[in-house]
């Protein structure tokens, strides 16, 4: 009964999100038919190393891995008014991990962006509303999910060298292959471990430091659900709202926890060509739950990015 109700609820939520997304797409696309548009193409290729892909708080559960990543985004940008633009794109994303193949990912999605500028010139404030949704398929199908993001940000340049930004983002992930529960004997647990949602506040700064190099800094504060893979421990279990064995990390269990994550990122982006850049960035994040479970991680990204 619980399982059926859970699946019905999940189906309803998925349908609702998809309907809202498509409705917005249609409404804004129709409003843009009078505008002249140009095609957009963005491509990113690179690698990532994370020393804690499991988001584990214990040394036994902490696993590092590296991955190669590729992302392609194609769409159109409509200039609908003197200060307003709308971007729509279809996105493909793939990633292969060196050690934990279950994390290998193929993702398809759509994104929608409304950009509103408040005045003339780069020093005018630019606000961006962004919506995106994707279907994420993993080799470990237990991780398959639909992901949604809605964000609102504002930024402006100070001169031609410093840009400051502030933003908010809501993220939601729906696990597709949840059985509803995971039972050990007569004890059953919710196994919707990837059904997570969170709210993130973002501060960012970009600084042009040379003719080719830009430094990027960001701070993120996220409050919401996280998924942590760890050894079986009663303390983690008691703090979790969902729980299930993890196929990718044999012998470990995945937990859904309510937590707060703070992260800082520092990156350098070098212009290789007028439309291409090489980006190296580092992110440190620390997550804490009310139950005293804490974990940290370090992530390095090296990405070549192209934008038509």
């Amino acid at each position: 009964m619980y399982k059926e109700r859970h699946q019905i609820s999940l189906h309803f939520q998925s349908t609702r999100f998809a309907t809202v997304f498509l409705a917005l797409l249609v409404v804004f696309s129709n409003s843009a038919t009078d505008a002249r548009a140009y095609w957009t193409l963005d491509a990113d290729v690179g690698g990532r190393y994370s020393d804690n892909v499991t988001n584990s708080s214990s040394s036994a559960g902490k696993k590092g891995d590296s991955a190669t990543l590729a992302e392609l985004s194609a769409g159109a940008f409509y200039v609908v008014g003197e200060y307003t633009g709308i971007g729509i794109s279809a996105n493909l994303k793939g990633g292969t991990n060196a050690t934990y193949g279950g994390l290998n990912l193929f993702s398809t999605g759509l994104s929608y962006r409304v950009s509103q500028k408040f005045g003339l010139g780069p020093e005018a404030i630019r606000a961006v509303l962004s919506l995106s949704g994707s279907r994420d398929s993993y080799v470990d199908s237990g991780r398959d999910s639909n992901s949604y993001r809605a964000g609102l940000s504002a930024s402006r340049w100070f001169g031609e060298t410093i840009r400051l930004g502030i933003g908010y983002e809501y993220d939601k992930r729906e696990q597709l292959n949840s059985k509803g529960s995971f039972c050990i004997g007569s004890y059953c647990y919710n196994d919707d471990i990837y059904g997570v949602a969170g709210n993130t506040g973002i501060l960012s700064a970009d600084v042009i430091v040379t003719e080719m190099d830009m430094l990027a800094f960001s701070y993120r504060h996220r409050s919401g659900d996280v998924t942590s893979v760890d050894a079986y421990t009663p303390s983690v279990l008691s703090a979790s709202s969902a729980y299930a064995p993890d196929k990718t990390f044999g012998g470990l269990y995945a937990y859904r926890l309510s937590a707060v994550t703070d992260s800082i990122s520092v990156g350098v982006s070098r212009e290789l060509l007028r439309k291409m850049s090489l980006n190296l960035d580092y992110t440190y994040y620390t997550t804490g739950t009310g139950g005293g479970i804490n974990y940290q991680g370090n992530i390095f990204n090296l990405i070549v990015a192209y934008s038509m």
Partner: protein
Amino acid sequence: MEIQNGFRSCAKLSALVAFNVIFALLQLRPAYSQNIEVLVRDANGAPAFNAVVYAYPADGNVPGWSPKTVIVDQIDKEFTPSVTIVPVGTPIFFPNDDDIRHHVYSFSQAKMFELPLYSGKQAKPVVFDKPGVVALGCNIHDWMVAYIYVSDTPYYAKTGKDGKTRLENLEPGRYNFFVWHPWMKGKPEDYRKFATVGGDSRVEFDVKLRANLHIRRAPAIGGGGY
């Protein structure tokens, strides 16, 4: 009869001589209008591309000019060319050859204007009626930047990638030469040179350029992924 024929021959000869003298004078005239080479380098001795070089006669007698229509294009979301020199009074069209509309503007005191979203060729050109530097931007694409140098002398030129250019058709005499570059430190007056057209063969400038720190077009990828 013979006297009449002699008179006619003499008249023909005189006309021929006069014609030859006038023709010779016309041939000599270009010798008075001369060219002078200019080289602009940065502080490291590297050639300075897109530097504007201009000259005023030392006696203050700047000749007049007839402005001609000029075009600054927009292609692939870039202004082309990125530096343009025109004399005061020049009308400039800003045609848009992209599939998207652009929104061209300038905050510069020499010419403040705005061409709200348009595609193709705008109906009327913008007339640049004050001397000075006009920085152009596009409100849709922040990286799009170009400069128009509005000159109050007809003697001007722009350097190529080798840092060289040539001022043409100057009357011989003493001149004040100036240079301007979008990333130049200081004012053109700080780099003033005196040279004699018809005497000196070349004017050289060594200018200090700041780094070209600008809003760039290349994408940047933020961190994250936790």
